[in-house]
């Protein structure tokens, strides 16, 4: 049984429920026959991918839904072999170059050139060009992005790119200036409740407006998360009412516990205990940024207003360190220790 996230995913531009203006715009782009390179950005769970798939369908018709997965082998200049998975249909292909880490340049160069130099096989195809969708474009290395630059211009008759990114900050300016920026904002609380109600109707679940509202608020304007939470609530409870508690994800509960422990006691001993929990989170593949961010906001809720400024400052500082450093745990612990110190100092000032 598919998750409702996938089952109720809109398949065409008409079915999209929010950002109607944007959908219209994408439709007119797709129909004009003059499709530009796109850079689609927005927070996760806002519906970037769904919109793009729907746009592709608008471009080429239902043929794009017949996809297969190819495993390709690329060779780097130092003759290292790279395995790389590509999702393809007759009309488009979809790649996640950040899978191969630092070698993404090789993939981008080889693959795009190959695509660009072959024409559309299907003579009856609606468009002459093929579309390459690049996921996680903000994780592309500089080299790979530089390699994209000229390719985008030179092969534009045969090739259109759609880049998907969470933010445009890491995309180099030359790429940005060659693409049409499409911002997909997160759905509003209202949009999410509507989407939840729709899903409930399709599944035949009883409507519970209060619950929908609470889930929407809890999800942080992330529709995917909202739908998953909704399904989780239904899986865990027989009967759904407006007051059914929403179980937080395990990791979030654990981080909440860490925050509480940090607040209770400020000692090296406590850091040791927290370390075990942090390791636990990391081994369950929770991204360090998420850990740090969630922890920060949990702590912020517990402390005095005067301290908030400092805590955010150091949180941002250590988050940056996490990105640039190699050992994640150092920086997470450093943040915990720093927080304890700030808090202790603050308490001492209060005493005096």
């Amino acid at each position, binding site marked *: 049984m598919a998750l409702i996230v996938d089952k109720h995913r809109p398949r065409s531009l008409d079915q999209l429920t929010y950002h109607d203006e944007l959908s219209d715009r994408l439709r007119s782009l797709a129909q004009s026959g003059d499709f530009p390179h796109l850079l689609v950005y927005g927070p996760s769970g806002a519906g970037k991918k769904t919109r793009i798939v729907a746009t592709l369908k608008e471009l080429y018709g239902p043929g794009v839904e017949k996809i297969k997965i190819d495993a390709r082998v690329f060779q780097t200049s130092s003759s290292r072999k790279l395995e790389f998975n590509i999702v393809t249909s007759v009309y488009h292909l979809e790649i996640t170059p950040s899978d191969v880490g630092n070698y993404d340049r090789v993939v981008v160069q080889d693959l795009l050139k190959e695509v660009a130099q072959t024409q559309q096989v299907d003579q009856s195809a609606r468009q002459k060009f093929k579309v390459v969708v690049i996921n996680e474009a903000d994780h592309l290395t500089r080299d790979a992005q530089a390699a994209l630059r*000229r390719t985008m211009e030179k092969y534009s008759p045969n090739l259109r790119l759609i880049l998907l990114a969470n933010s445009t900050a890491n995309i180099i300016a030359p790429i940005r200036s060659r693409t049409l920026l499409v911002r997909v904002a997160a759905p509003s609380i209202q949009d999410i409740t509507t989407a939840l109600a729709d899903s409930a109707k399709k599944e035949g679940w009883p409507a519970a407006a209060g619950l929908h509202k609470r889930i929407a608020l809890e999800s942080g304007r992330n529709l995917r998360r909202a739908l998953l939470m909704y399904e989780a609530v239904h899986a865990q409870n027989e009967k759904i009412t407006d007051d059914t508690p929403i179980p937080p994800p395990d990791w979030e509960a654990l981080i909440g516990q860490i925050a509480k422990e940090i607040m209770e006691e400020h000692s090296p001993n406590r850091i040791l205990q927290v370390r075990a929990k942090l390791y636990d989170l990391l081994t369950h593949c929770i991204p360090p940024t998420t850990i740090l961010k969630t922890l920060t906001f949990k702590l912020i809720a517990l402390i005095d207003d005067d301290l908030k400024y400092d805590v955010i400052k150091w949180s941002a500082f250590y988050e940056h360190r996490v990105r640039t450093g190699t050992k994640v745990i150092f920086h997470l612990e450093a943040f915990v220790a720093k927080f304890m110190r700030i808090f202790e100092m603050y308490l001492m000032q209060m005493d005096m």
Partner: protein
Amino acid sequence: MASFFDLKARKAAGANGSAPKADDKKQNTRRQPWVEKYRPKTLSDVTAQDHTVNVLQRTLQASNVTPTMSTAGEVAAKHFHMLFYGPPGTGKTSTILALAKELYGPEMIKSRVLELNASDERGISIVREKVKDFARMQLTNPPAGYKSRYPCPPFKIIILDEADSMTQDAQSALRRTMETYSKITRFCLICNYVTRIIDPLASRCSKFRFKSLDQGNAKKRLEEIAEKEGVGLDDGAVDALIKCSEGDLRKAITYLQSAARLVGAIEKDQDGGDSADDAMDVDRKTVSVAIVQEISGVIPENTIAALQKAMQPRSAGATYQAVAKVVENMVADGWSAGQVVTQLYHSVLQDETIPDLQKNKITLVFSEVDKRLLDGADEHLSILDLALRISNILSGKG
């Protein structure tokens, strides 16, 4: 289904037209990005780089004279490799391509010009093999009569576009190659950041700085293109384009094209192309300032204003609440953090009410946050940190 009919209609149009091939070609040009379509064809078309164009044009004339004459231009033509640098979208690649076209004409350009850019493999092995082989190759003579139309000077040109993304090793491998074959081969390096070109290479080239386009020239060019494509522009739309693109003409043209696509201004009158259509053009939609801003991802003024208002000093607790709320909404709306930083920076610096000393401190914060964002730090935290720190400085504590 709609597009199926469309296809039929297109075929019918093809049958009606004079020759299907011509129609095909026309479609191709229409599909082309305007950036490519309106790339300057000759040196004199290049917008707003007068100094560089002057020097290069002298080269062009100099290459016409016989080798025995020793004019200043000829000396230049003989000894120079070129290094073009400047911000994106100022016409570097366009200039050298236009120069190459004027020098060699359509037939010789293939055998005389080698263009390599970052999308080609450009490691040290390529420099050693491909570049060296090309540099070493003897010149082929132009066909008779060809020389009267194009100067065809006795050297080849190797264009290394985006040279700042070449590795150090590859760059140093070029050094000797550049010198040895300088008689028959000229190099033209193009880059954004001249500092990333190793000194030995930079010192072998005459440098040309491409400055950001000034308003007037960019405006002229944009209006010209809009007119040729039959796109209606609202008052102030051109200024908005220029402002959003920050001197990057390519960006401005791309925005213009996207905006035109969005309002659906292109398709009809390109197909017809007759003056009879002009009458219909009157009620066609025009490109407005709002559309331009939306396309370029510029954050609306009032969003920034809201953030600035939230940052104003007040009792400590209230500040955090206010700022956190605005920032959360901004992040959820998907505004890119880089854009927030840029726009906030401009608006804070132009704020007359902030004393200079505080501005100094604020600028430091901006530089740090910018670096963090570039390193891929979390946007939400970074922007929150930025806003809180600024507000702290504003309240005189920082």
